[in-house]
């Protein structure tokens, strides 16, 4: 399958500072990929290289096989890009602004008018179509930039922190929108700090730190690599101090925390130890209602790999 996006050994230096250090990745058509990393990791720089806002020091970025920096007018035709928090032409109305961008994408008048209605409906700004943007709140301006990004019905979306500046409802709307794009087979590169958003919508993630790709892969695979080291056990009755001491003595338990009739057990994370602990608890007469390994989130993985990278113990 042809790659919608391909980044090949791309390097970007600003003077002595290397923002991107030989990053490579490929995104197939129809894939939704999360691009994750802490502030300053190089996510936005990569996205700017992919949209010809920056020129690479070396390496190449391709959209549908076309080199973005060599032939941007062709490469950017199927792309909708939302980068950082762009300024907005506040002396225009949404209708005027979207008409301008629609014409840049060579849409005809009828198509522009139809799409304006659709995209303003999607971002809940239909009632504001002919009002001056200068009167809009930050969240409304943000939603308008999202509408602008999808106006020409792009095949490929490049989104850099799309939920910035939105209220919780707006964030949920963006998440729903991403799910809709996924169902429509759109290719999306999503840079985000909101890991729920990424784990809910993305097929794959790429972790970036200090200009280097640390790891990448399908979310399920990445989550599968994570060792679950905590089990939550719920008992029929509250536990006495003596009961807690008895549990602590079970081989394999490193530590535990108690809260009423629930305890959280820390152990080495292996299935064998987990099984032995359960057998011991039952064997010692404890009435166990539930025994569940704690679900780990993408966030835990993010924190753990970032800590590993920086040598945090």
């Amino acid at each position, binding site marked *: 399958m042809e790659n919608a996006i391909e980044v090949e050994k791309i390097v970007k230096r600003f003077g002595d500072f290397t923002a991107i250090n030989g990053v490579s990745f490929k995104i197939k058509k129809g894939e939704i990929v999360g691009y994750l990393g802490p502030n300053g990791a190089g996510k936005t720089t990569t996205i700017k290289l992919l949209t010809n806002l920056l020129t690479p020091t070396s390496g190449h970025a391709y959209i549908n096989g076309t080199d973005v920096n060599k032939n941007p007018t062709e490469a*950017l035709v199927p792309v909708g890009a939302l980068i950082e928090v762009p*300024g907005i032409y506040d002396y225009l109305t949404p209708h005027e602004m979207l008409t301008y961008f629609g014409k840049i994408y060579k849409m005809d008048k009828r198509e522009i008018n139809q799409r304006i209605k659709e995209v303003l409906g999607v971002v809940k700004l239909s009632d504001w179509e002919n009002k001056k943007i200068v009167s809009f709140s930050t969240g409304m301006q943000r939603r308008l930039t999202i509408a602008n990004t999808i106006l020409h019905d792009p095949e490929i979306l490049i989104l850099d922190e799309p939920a910035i500046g939105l209220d919780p409802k707006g964030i949920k709307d963006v998440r729903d929108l991403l799910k809709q794009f996924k169902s429509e087979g759109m290719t999306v590169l999503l840079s985000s700090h909101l890991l729920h958003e990424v784990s809910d919508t993305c097929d794959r993630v790429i972790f970036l730190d200090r200009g280097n790709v640390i790891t990448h892969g399908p979310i399920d695979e990445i989550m599968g690599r994570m060792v679950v080291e905590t089990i939550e056990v719920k008992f029929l009755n509250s536990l006495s101090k003596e009961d807690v001491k008895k549990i602590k003595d079970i081989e394999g338990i490193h530590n535990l925390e108690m809260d009423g009739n629930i305890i959280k057990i820390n152990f080495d994370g292996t299935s064998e130890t987990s099984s032995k602990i359960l057998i011991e608890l039952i064997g010692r007469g404890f009435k166990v209602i539930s025994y569940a390994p704690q679900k780990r989130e993408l966030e835990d993985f993010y924190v753990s790999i970032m800590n590993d990278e920086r040598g945090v113990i």
Partner: protein
Amino acid sequence: MATADDFKHMYLSVRFELLKHFRRRRILITGVLAVLLPLIFYIVPPLLDQDYTDAANDFAASNLGFITLLIIISGAIFAGDSISGEFEKKTGLLLFPTPQRKTSIFTGKYIASVIATWLIVALFYLVTVIEIASIYGVSEISVEVIQSFLIALLYSTSVISVVFFFSSIMKRTITSTLIGFFFLMMILPIITSVLMVAEVDPWFVVTHSADLITDGLGSGGGFVHGGGQGPIEFTIFEPDLYTGIGVMAAYAIILFLIGLVFANRRRME
């Protein structure tokens, strides 16, 4: 090689840049100045019980003494943010990742600034011509006034190119606007004066060439450089018509092209 799409994108850029000048009331403000400034020489003499000058061309020269000031104000207002604004206000993050050449965008913005300034200059001349017709009669509207108008349009274009150049290299719109304004309003005239004191012909200074706007009309020009009555004596160099036109055209073309190169190389970091 420019394509038909490039010209379409350029046209779009011109249209929306003009809309910006209109919505931001820049055209209104400079338009009001273009009407009020020539009205001073029409209204004040009767109020002071004075007669108008005998010759229509002298009256036009007096009126047009203000035109260079208006051109510089308009140039700074219209072109000051043409490039720097997209970077400072980050609207470039919306506009640049689109399938159009930056050359089309920036050339469109340049043309819009030229059109807006030409409109203001044309309005100033229209008011002046109406005044001449009302005081001296329509037959007194001379060829020199038309020549002056054409030179003023050329000078406007060179002023836009100067400010456009500063806009392409400056980070902030306020800086590009003010530097453009003071460069044309103060720095170049000071250089001209210093050169004249040194008895060097400042033929290559564009603001010196701008004297051609009124030179063809007679003696009434408002901004004639002179020796004064102080201890310093210097020769007054009058610009040559063809050299002056060449200088203005050179400023217009060269600074536009340099500005375009800088603007194209500029990146959204």
